[in-house]
């Protein structure tokens, strides 16, 4: 009991070798600084990060503002209403159900990218969640140590070397690229074809289901317009989107 405590104390002293009489530890003391304090690495790195292929910027920016307003005036109020009328169990069930449907494109795309382990993961999740989890309303698979690892057709295209093409802001759906838009269409087609749990057929005739899915997407997406609180939110989102996609494809 005492020994780890003593060890911790000595380690703490090793990490903070200097404490002045006020008790201040001078955290910047041990940093290696550029001698002239005139390196422009932050500027250089950021300028380079701003360099995203965006030939339709003017259109994209207008679409961005359109989506922002749509979000404020339609989507978020809808989510608030949804939260107000449904108990949490129901919302989690709905999210699980749609995420279970999403395992179909994950399975297809993992296979297309020759990722056997991931395809097996998706298959196992699909089976456990559909059977034990009653059509996907519960998610026992995650508890069994099978985490959700989504793959989409845009990632598959990227995996096989298709370039991302121009950056695009899609109405209501937000940031994308030409490649990822094609990917989105591909995944949609797959879902229609497979018609798992007859969802595709049911949602064809039932607008309510599609609406519920949209509300659920918004409910589970943490992003809020304006939260970055910057006049340059458009540029920042664009950078984060393109980097996140690169990470997802490389992974």
């Amino acid at each position: 009991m005492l020994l780890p405590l003593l060890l911790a104390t000595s380690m703490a002293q090793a990490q903070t070798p200097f404490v002045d009489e006020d008790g201040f530890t001078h955290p910047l003391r041990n940093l290696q600084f550029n001698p002239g304090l005139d390196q422009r690495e932050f500027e250089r790195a950021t300028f380079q990060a701003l360099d995203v292929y965006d030939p339709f910027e003017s259109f994209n920016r207008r679409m961005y503002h359109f989506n922002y307003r749509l979000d404020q005036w339609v989507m978020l109020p809808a989510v608030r209403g949804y939260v107000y009328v449904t108990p949490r169990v129901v919302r989690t069930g709905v999210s699980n159900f749609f995420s279970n449907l999403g395992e179909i494109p994950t399975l297809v795309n993992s296979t297309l990218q020759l990722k056997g382990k991931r395809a097996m993961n998706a298959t196992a999740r699909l089976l456990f969640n559909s059977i034990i989890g009653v059509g996907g309303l519960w998610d026992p698979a995650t508890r069994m140590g099978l985490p959700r690892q989504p793959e989409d057709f845009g990632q598959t295209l990227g995996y096989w070397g298709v370039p991302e093409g121009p950056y695009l802001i899609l109405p209501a759906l937000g940031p994308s690229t030409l490649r990822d838009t094609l990917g989105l269409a591909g995944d949609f087609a797959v879902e229609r074809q497979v018609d798992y749990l007859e969802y595709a057929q049911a949602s064809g005739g039932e607008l309510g289901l599609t609406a519920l899915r949209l509300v659920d997407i918004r409910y589970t997406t943490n992003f809020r317009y304006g939260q970055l609180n910057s006049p340059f939110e458009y540029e920042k989102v664009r950078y984060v989107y393109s980097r996140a996609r690169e990470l997802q494809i490389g992974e």
Partner: protein
Amino acid sequence: MPLLLRLTALLALVVAPAHAADLSAAEYGFPLGNPFEATIATTPPGLRMQVPSDEDIDQADYSLRLRPEREFGLPDSFWAVKRLRYRLARQSGPAPLIFIISGTGGHYSNGKTESLKRLFYGAGYHVVQLSSPTSYDFISAASRYATPGLSSDDAQDLYRVMQAVRAQHPRLPVTEFHLTGYSLGALNAAFVSQLDETRRSFNFKKVLLINPPVNLYTSISNLDKLVQTRVEGIDDNTTFYEVVLEKLTRYYRQRGHIDLDEAMLYDFQQSPLKLSDEQMAMLIGSVFRFSVADITFTSDLINRRGLIVPQDYPINEGTRLEPFFKRALLCNFDCYITEQLIPMWRAQYDGGSLAQLVQQVSLYALEDYLRQSPKIAVMHNADDVILGPGDIGFLRRTLGERLTLYPRGGHCGNLEYRVNAEHMLEFFRG
């Protein structure tokens, strides 16, 4: 019930020794000894205070129309910040209300403000979250001169906002008012509290300053300096961001999948790929540089100074802002002060030298007030990167027992730590 409360308070007094005395690192128990790591990763999830989840909080966002003239003067693409928004979490019955002022460039809904909200809401307070006077929305929608940095002016703007918030909820049963802020928000809170002594709209009962800058110029010089660290691995083809992202990518490859949760950061810093102090310093510095870029651009545009955006340049929702973003990114805190703040201060208030400005906007200006006001307390960390030599000495001299100095935590890295959270609640309770 009151008896129970009193007993609990008594018990707390017995169990927790007077916390004004300095804690040693071992007593304190906060695990992150590296100030940069603490600043970035904050408190490990297992060591945080139990707080209510968002779904259990009765809260909503509201907006105030404070500067109607801006609705015509600002470009269309500013439509979202022509009104000042804030968040109010309300208790079901009468309760004390606490205002939380966010730190540099911070939105009212940013992570630190949110976690303070959860803490105080869980302890039975109505909570109002306000954006920092240096944030994009506040500058556009609430700031009279739209040139933040003069602490007394910022305090007046904030005070007006607080009064408007109170007026918007006349039926909210408030028993008493409290005030807190972290980082730059703490400095703002001190000036607001002083203003309240004469205006008396709130009669704040308790005011807590969490990690305030003492000398504002020391703080911004430190922050400007952070992006000047020597980072290994940078060359003509690889920028700093790429170095960091490369490490993250390799880390994810090893793990086999991506999960961006909070525990990930600790694992990452335990792995051989962990970031060096210089790299973390550079990251922290970069975050602040982005905040300054926002301030520089917004302030210049609203005042039509023509430093970043040419005067009367037409801007609509489709206008490319990248060239202006780039210009604004070249400007650090020091540049903002010399190019925008000081000229405005001289024109508006017949201001003098930089040294005089620093004196006026830092905690020094409030030395007597802080000394004489038992309702104000400060919580600070011995390894905070925004402090310089002598700053803690100033706080000790001025506040005495009302300063709680934690041995670790970096800059605001220990806000959610159980010990800190308990001290905060205890201070407002007492």
